[in-house]
């Protein structure tokens, strides 16, 4: 197809890779946004999920928050944050929106993983005189780790997608190549940007899957 050839030409043109709005810069922005927000969301969501799972409380919230996250359009949240007073603070609306959408899969998976730990194992650990903290770090977290990591993988892919949509609301990242292509009515650039975004998402997913598969056995789980 002609468009694909033109998209390939656009991708292989060195001029499109350099500069402040070049592919290189956009790729770095995307990586940076995804990485920073993944760290932020893990730091906020995982401790909450692990403690709730350990105590066996707040299950309805931890499980339903994923459904709520699905019903709320990412784009709407981005624009709402942009028009709110936070909108004046550079990348903050994007960062907040990204974290908001990465937290639900982290919370739900970690909570379900913690509750999925065999109750007999927990009772045995208690019987051996383990304190709550030892139980959490020595028994529950290791056994729940496969699901926790699955949550991290889903969150990472979600972050890549949300960071792309952020370009619609003026944020940085690879999505900007697509929106700029639409503004220029340049189908080859739109397709080239889309290929980059899709590849980026697939590579992130593949890295997590490989990491889990090749990682130590305790990270693999049975599923």
């Amino acid at each position, binding site marked *: 197809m002609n468009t*694909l050839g033109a998209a390939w030409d656009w991708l292989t043109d060195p001029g499109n890779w350099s500069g402040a709005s070049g592919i290189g810069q956009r790729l770095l922005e995307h990586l940076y946004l995804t990485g920073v927000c993944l760290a932020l969301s893990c730091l906020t969501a995982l401790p909450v999920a692990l403690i709730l799972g350990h105590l066996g409380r707040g299950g309805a919230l931890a499980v339903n928050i994923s459904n709520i996250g699905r019903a709320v*359009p990412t*784009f709407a*949240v981005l624009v709402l944050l942009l028009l709110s007073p936070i909108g004046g603070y550079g990348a903050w609306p994007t960062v907040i929106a990204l974290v908001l959408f990465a937290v639900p899969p982290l919370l739900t998976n970690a909570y379900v993983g913690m509750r999925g730990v065999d109750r007999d194992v927990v009772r045995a650990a208690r019987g051996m005189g383990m304190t709550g903290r030892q139980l959490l770090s020595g028994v529950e977290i290791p056994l729940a780790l496969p699901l926790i990591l699955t949550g991290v993988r889903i969150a990472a892919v979600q972050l890549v*997608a949300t960071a792309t949509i952020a370009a619609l609301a003026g944020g940085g990242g690879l999505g900007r190549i697509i929106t700029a292509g639409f503004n220029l009515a340049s*189908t080859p650039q739109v397709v080239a*940007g889309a290929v980059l*975004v899709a590849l980026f998402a*697939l590579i992130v997913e593949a890295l997590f899957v490989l990491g889990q598969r090749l990682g130590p056995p305790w990270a693999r789980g049975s599923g």
Partner: protein
Amino acid sequence: MTATPDDCLARNEWICGEYLSTRRQILGDAVVQHLQLTAVSVLIALAVAVPLAVAARRWRWTAGPVLGVTTVLYTIPSLAMFSLLLPLYGLSASLVIAGLALYSLTLLVRNILAGLRAVPEETRQAARGMGYGPIRLLLAVELPLALPAAMAGLRIAVVSAVSLVTIGAIVGYGGLGNLIYSGMNTYFKAQVLTASALCVIIAVAADLLLLLVQRYVTPWTRAVSA
């Protein structure tokens, strides 16, 4: 020249009754477009997903490729998905429908296949023993038993589709997303909040509606949980 009216529209407030009453037509049209895009795409996905899931169940070797391809499709971010379809469909509603249908397809195939796989082997053997042929076994035993899982997938697919329609604004067919997009460019707070709230309301209403349908078509699941 008339004096600038001092109402909530002029003050650009988030919540504005004036906006609802003066823009009723625009809001109504956007909601209708939103519902049409969602419904058409999910129905197309359903029409493709059922045969795919049945095929993946019958011929084991097809399950791997079917699940693999749908997983790859699902990983592609929505904005990129719509953009990749641009050369095929141009700036049209079909583009948004095709993109949404591909996402719904993934969710539906996975859930229907899980439902079919969960049908107990004893049930299948009992039906065969009663003289059921393969087609009748599928239509009268396996598919009905897979309904709860399929309906769960359908609910997730519909809720996701309602939310993803908004991204269609990039090609001008985003239902309420169009209003959010134009509201962003003109800094029109009431429009953005109203359209966003309507999106969530549509998603929740569709979910509840499907839940009711699910209860109606699978009365046996209630008896078990009661």
